[in-house]
């Protein structure tokens, strides 16, 4: 087995860019990643792309400008985990010795598809019944609050933390202000109990990474593990709220492969599409026991200057959520954090980082897919 390393990352800005071509967003991210990795584009010998809404052939349309003809290339769609699913395939391919240098790209342009929340998938039973994604998370939040007594203020604290972090992220979509708990709760109701400021915006953007083998550069990050799982049945037998089990399965595999415990992680980027998502995810990752995840943000544990900073970039709640690109944006942030290049967002301890991306929404499944990867600075 070859050791897989992260050579470089790049992203576009995140926001609503309906006037831009989708491939232009991708080229911006790829160009930065190639420069960051210190390679020539000609050294890339495979391309993996994560995207949900395309357009069809988006990988080829991006490839057109890159001058990397004829290499193996494929597109992965795993809902919100599409970008990190593409990354996972690249990591596995490098480990197996299939390729020496792989370009991973996540790209999405949602502003030309949706003006607000994603329109639910009409072929799905729940989608046909008008269950929007904030509604699915709201059902999760109501169940969770009913079981564990979580308060609206605890939910809102996640939004306050991440939006405050996002003020220091020049690429974030929302960085105008850091609301108070009261302001988060007073914002427009979307799906009870989730208010507007507890929901991430749909976004346009791209993220890219170069994954390859060990090449003796100290700046490269060691990919200790990448674990990817698909969904399992989520039905009347499920004791967990929707989504919990898929994250837990990926996390269990990732920590076992890396030989690490949750307490050893210095900094995390996790899937906070809605405030309840971060809480459930941190429990599934093992940072808190069942029902205690809601205490992490109010206690300061997950603050940027806390014991285990979570979403120092501002997370999806600030950055926005361009589905296929989100995982790559998370990877870029953890890369910058581990290298000590995160500027005003830099966390104090930054030797080991974790990225978690959870994609979901297909009825009756506990998620479409989840990816958990752990990266470490070379010592």
């Amino acid at each position, binding site marked *: 087995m070859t050791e897989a390393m992260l050579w470089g990352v790049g992203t576009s800005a995140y926001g609503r860019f309906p006037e831009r071509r989708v491939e232009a967003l991708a080229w911006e991210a790829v160009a930065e990643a190639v420069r960051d990795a210190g390679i020539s584009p000609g050294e890339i010998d495979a391309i993996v792309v994560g995207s949900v809404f395309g357009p069809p052939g988006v990988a080829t349309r991006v490839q057109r400008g890159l001058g990397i003809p004829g290499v193996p290339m494929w597109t992965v769609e795993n809902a919100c985990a599409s970008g990190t699913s593409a990354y996972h395939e690249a990591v596995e391919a490098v480990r197996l010795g299939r390729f020496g240098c792989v370009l991973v790209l996540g790209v999405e342009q949602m502003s030309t598809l949706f003006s607000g929340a994603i329109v639910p998938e009409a072929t799905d039973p729940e989608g*046909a019944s*008008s269950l929007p994604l904030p509604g699915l998370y709201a059902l999760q939040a109501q169940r969770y609050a009913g079981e564990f007594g979580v308060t609206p203020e605890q939910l809102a604290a996640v939004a306050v933390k991440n939006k405050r972090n996002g003020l220091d992220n020049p690429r974030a979509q929302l960085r105008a202000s850091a609301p108070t708990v009261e302001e988060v709760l007073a914002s427009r109701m979307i799906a009870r109990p989730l208010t507007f400021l507890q929901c991430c915006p749909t976004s346009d953007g791209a993220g890219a990474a170069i994954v390859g083998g060990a090449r003796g550069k100290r700046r490269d990050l060691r990919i200790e593990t990448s674990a990817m799982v698909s969904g399992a049945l989520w039905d009347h037998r499920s004791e967990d709220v929707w989504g919990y089990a898929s994250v837990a399965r990926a996390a269990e595999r990732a920590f076992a492969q890396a030989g690490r415990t949750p307490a050893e992680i210095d900094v995390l980027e996790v899937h906070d599409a809605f405030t309840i998502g971060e809480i459930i995810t941190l429990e599934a990752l093992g940072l808190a026991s069942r029902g205690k995840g809601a205490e992490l943000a109010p206690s300061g544990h997950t603050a940027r200057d806390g014991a285990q900073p979570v979403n120092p970039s501002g997370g999806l709640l600030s950055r926005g959520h361009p589905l296929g690109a989100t995982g790559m944006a998370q990877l870029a942030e953890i890369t910058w954090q581990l290298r000590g290049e995160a500027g005003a967002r830099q966390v104090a301890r930054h030797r080991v980082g974790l990225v978690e991306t959870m994609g979901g929404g297909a009825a009756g499944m506990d998620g479409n897919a989840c990816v958990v990867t752990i990266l470490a600075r070379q010592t």
Partner: protein
Amino acid sequence: MAELGVGRPTKRRAGSAVGGLPVADSRPVFAGDAVLGTRCSACRYPSSQRDLPWCPACYAPMVAERFATTGPVWSATVVDIHVGTRKPPFGLAYVDLDDGPRVLVHLAEPAVLGLGSRVRITGTDDGDLVATEVRS
């Protein structure tokens, strides 16, 4: 910018509810005194889906089944945004049918019902199951 896309084709339509082409309806069917679905002939796993290839829990054949129209609420919410053609506010709940699967229902009254509240499916609204709280 406001003119962007005007008069040009859009990328995707998500079904007839938002102006696209119609798609097959995968929602559970209400038959007046039962919710129609399937049940595993071996392990008794219930599903509101009628065209499964085999039991997703044990791989044995599925057969047609009629489920109770009553059950406890697993969770409920009220949605306060437009979704497709549906206007807010509207109540949604996951209900574990007494002898059957978990199904998504619309609530006759838009209120957040507590966990475990008893509801009865009383009809459909444009194909969606509609449930009413049963007060004892």
